[in-house]
């Protein structure tokens, strides 16, 4: 009964999405308030019904309802509760349901803020958002129904793919989707602006917080996925340039560019056409990613949905939304007048360069990902485009951003002083130089690692120079420093942290060049040297888990003869699917990690061991956390919070370009 309720709720959500997609938009076109007002409540109801549907599926998983095909194929009664829940989105149907849940969540959030927006803008945004919902709800109902019943209910399920039974992967998809799907809001805003024909600095003010939220979660989601791959897949890499990964990286790059161009649009009323284009592009790349992953077009073993019916359906969604929005864009963009003027050397100029490099990085990833497909389709010729290609090309385009970043923060709007900025950055440059030389002296080859580390130090120190100057600007007065530090706008702190964060990540990535790897065969008692540490195998034990059995190796790590810890890398065997996974042993020492995998046990009792010492590797993901934090602090800035400024200064609202009611 609960399952049928969930299914029915999904159908109701689809019906509501049609209402929400048509009525408010019609109201906006004929300027009828009562029709426009339908948008917000129907968005809230749509979210409620989608959530109910999602809750019903989750319930079916928790109680192991093996009359559902979806539950049979992805769950097991002995599975720990957390993986019963994460199993909901660990498959095609459930993850699409999560997709529309988050889509309607963002719709509901906009609906809650609708009172602070002009009526027609809110109505149009909610309508466009609902078209996307309607398309994907229909997709689920027609091709990917998670509520399909099995003719005969088996006693036991086939278990969730063991590789997905991991805390990291339990939270990775929701985080990533919050980012991925969050970009739908900026898309809806862009389409609404084009439909209403009102594209101005105020629009950028509405859009920027939503972009920031999506960007924050995208950053965190990508980092989480990267860390998961690092400790689960067993070969210690953190990024593989897999099409599935690229699918999430491209929207991230576009969203990062959008954040910066929306800033120019908000402050200077310039780059309007470009910002609208980026808003469309960012979500289009999310849709493209969904298509690539869900359709199986990559013929990638990673895409488990290889049903062509689904592929064609998503392709139609893709063509409709991308084509439609671009057509609208082409129709309306002509009418936009260029806004504020600026010299090439200025804050705007730096942000334009940022946008140029970010979009080219994004395009390079796109071309590299799709090129083999296109070439094979056109000429039957098969080529591979792998990590060596992406590292070289994307690296060359992306790395200059770290040089530009501190300069951008230093330059004034309209007309900047490059020489002055360079002088203020002398200190950062000096620290970077010393840092790079020190890294090279301590860790040695490769030179590229030291150079990148130096660049990272420049970006980190450079990120703080502006804030440091603003705090100490009035001469030496420690009491005033604290006051000024508190008095600085939060967005200044946010920018600084986000910029420093990506510098921190680069430092971690650069340091992978100094990693040490050992592949050895060990017996109990054997010792292996691993960079500055020595690792001893104490013994191997068998252990039973809830739905698996486990072979655990006990390893002691010593530094200069002193024991600093014990590690327990293991191999897990999942009986239901007869599959084995490896759980890496990880020990974090001074931001570096010892990473041990035990892939194989020989009949003679020895085990194969893969060991890595990766100095500073934790910085890669810590940097992402710092970026997330920076985004959050920016978001807390009251100037960014829509409506707050208006409530604080009610008299000023009359002068605003778009009065609230």
């Amino acid at each position, binding site marked *: 009964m609960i399952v049928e309720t969930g299914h029915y709720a999904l159908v109701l959500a689809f019906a509501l999405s049609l209402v929400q997609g048509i009525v408010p938009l019609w109201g906006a076109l004929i300027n009828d308030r009562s029709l426009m007002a339908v948008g917000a409540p129907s968005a809230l109801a749509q979210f409620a019904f989608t959530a109910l549907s999602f809750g019903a599926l989750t319930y079916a998983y928790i109680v192991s309802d093996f009359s559902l095909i979806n539950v049979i194929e992805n769950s097991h009664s002995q599975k720990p509760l957390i993986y019963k829940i994460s199993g909901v989105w660990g498959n095609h149907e459930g993850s699409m349901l999560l997709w529309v849940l988050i889509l309607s969540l963002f719709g509901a959030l906009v609906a809650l803020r609708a009172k602070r927006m002009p009526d027609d803008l809110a109505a149009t945004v909610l309508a466009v958002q609902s078209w996307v919902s309607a398309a994907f709800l229909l997709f689920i109902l027609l091709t990917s129904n998670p509520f399909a019943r099995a003719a005969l209910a088996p006693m036991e399920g086939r278990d969730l*793919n063991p590789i997905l039974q991991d805390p990291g992967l339990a939270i990775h998809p929701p985080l990533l989707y919050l980012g991925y799907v969050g970009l739908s809001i900026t898309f809806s805003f862009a389409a609404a602006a084009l439909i209403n024909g009102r594209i101005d600095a105020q629009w950028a003010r509405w859009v920027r917080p939503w972009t920031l939220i999506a960007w924050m979660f995208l950053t965190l989601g990508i980092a989480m996925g990267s860390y998961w*791959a690092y400790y689960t897949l067993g070969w210690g890499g953190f990024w593989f340039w*897999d099409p*599935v990964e690229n699918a999430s990286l491209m929207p991230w790059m576009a969203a990062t560019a959008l954040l910066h161009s929306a800033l120019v649009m908000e402050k200077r009323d310039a780059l309007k056409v470009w910002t609208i284009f980026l808003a469309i592009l960012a979500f289009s790349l999310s849709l493209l990613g969904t298509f690539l992953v869900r359709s199986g077009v990559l013929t990638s*073993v*990673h895409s488990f949905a290889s049903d062509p019916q689904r592929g064609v359906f998503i392709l139609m969604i893709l063509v409709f939304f991308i084509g439609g929005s671009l057509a609208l864009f082409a129709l309306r963009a002509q009418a936009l007048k260029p806004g504020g003027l600026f010299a090439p050397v200025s804050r705007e100029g730096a942000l334009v360069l940022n946008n140029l490099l970010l979009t*080219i990085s994004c395009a390079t990833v796109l071309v590299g990902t799709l090129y083999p497909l296109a070439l094979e389709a056109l000429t039957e010729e098969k080529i591979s485009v792998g990590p060596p290609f992406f590292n070289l090309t994307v690296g060359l385009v992306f790395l200059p951003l770290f040089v530009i970043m501190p300069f951008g923060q230093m330059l004034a709007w309209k007309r900047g002083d490059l020489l002055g900025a360079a002088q203020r950055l002398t200190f950062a440059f000096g620290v970077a130089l010393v840092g790079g030389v020190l890294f090279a002296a301590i860790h040695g080859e490769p030179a590229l690692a030291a150079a990148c580390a130096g660049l990272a130090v420049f970006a980190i120190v450079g990120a703080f120079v502006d804030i440091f100057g603003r705090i100490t600007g009035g001469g030496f007065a420690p009491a005033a420093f604290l006051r000024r530090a508190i008095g600085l706008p939060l967005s200044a702190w946010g920018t600084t942290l986000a910029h420093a964060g990506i510098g921190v990540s680069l430092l971690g990535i650069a340091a992978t060049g100094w990693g040490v790897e050992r592949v050895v*065969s060990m017996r109990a008692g054997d010792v292996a040297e691993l960079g500055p540490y020595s690792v001893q195998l104490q013994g191997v034990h068998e252990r039973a888990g809830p739905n698996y059995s486990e072979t655990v190796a006990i390893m002691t790590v010593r530094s200069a003869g002193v024991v600093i810890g014990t590690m327990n890398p293991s191999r897990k065997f999942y009986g239901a699917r007869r*599959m084995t996974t490896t759980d890496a042993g990880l020990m974090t020492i001074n931001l570096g990690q010892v990473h041990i995998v035990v892939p194989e046990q020989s009949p003679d009792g020895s085990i194969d061991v893969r060991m890595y010492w990766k100095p500073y590797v934790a910085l890669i993901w810590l940097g992402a956390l710092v970026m997330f934090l920076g985004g959050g602090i920016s978001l807390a800035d009251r100037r960014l919070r829509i409506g707050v400024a208006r409530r604080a200064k009610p008299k000023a609202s009359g002068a605003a370009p778009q009065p609230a009611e």
Partner: protein
Amino acid sequence: MRLLRSLALLLALAFPAASHAVQPDEILKDPALETRARALSAGLRCLVCQNQSIDDSNAPLARDLRLVVRERLQAGDDDAGVMRYVVARYGDFVLLKPPVNASTLLLWSSPGVLFALGLGWLLMSARRRRTLAQTPPLSEAERRELDKALSERA
């Protein structure tokens, strides 16, 4: 999205006897040769996997290819010679970094071409903006009107 990577493992684990990436018994005694072998392996695709180098893959075919690379190195081939040997047998598909030729020209040139286009567009719009910014000087009639308006206010 990353959870889809799981199928790589599914495939790999479909071979129960599969080894896991580089095994201890494969490693060459000469560390210099082994380093070269590892570097070469990282650029060669495991043909039965998707987007995995033979250095990372646990498929038996990847192991065979790793052994071939090491054999050629021990036979005295230089790096380019080993690559030629492998490409001659498996084609360009085996190279994770595609060679520059007629069919990959577009791929390799795209970042540069896009950069040039972007830069050109920026220069053009900057020039357009500059011409927009230059307001023509006031005509004689306009000046008289302005003077009149100003004197009236004063």
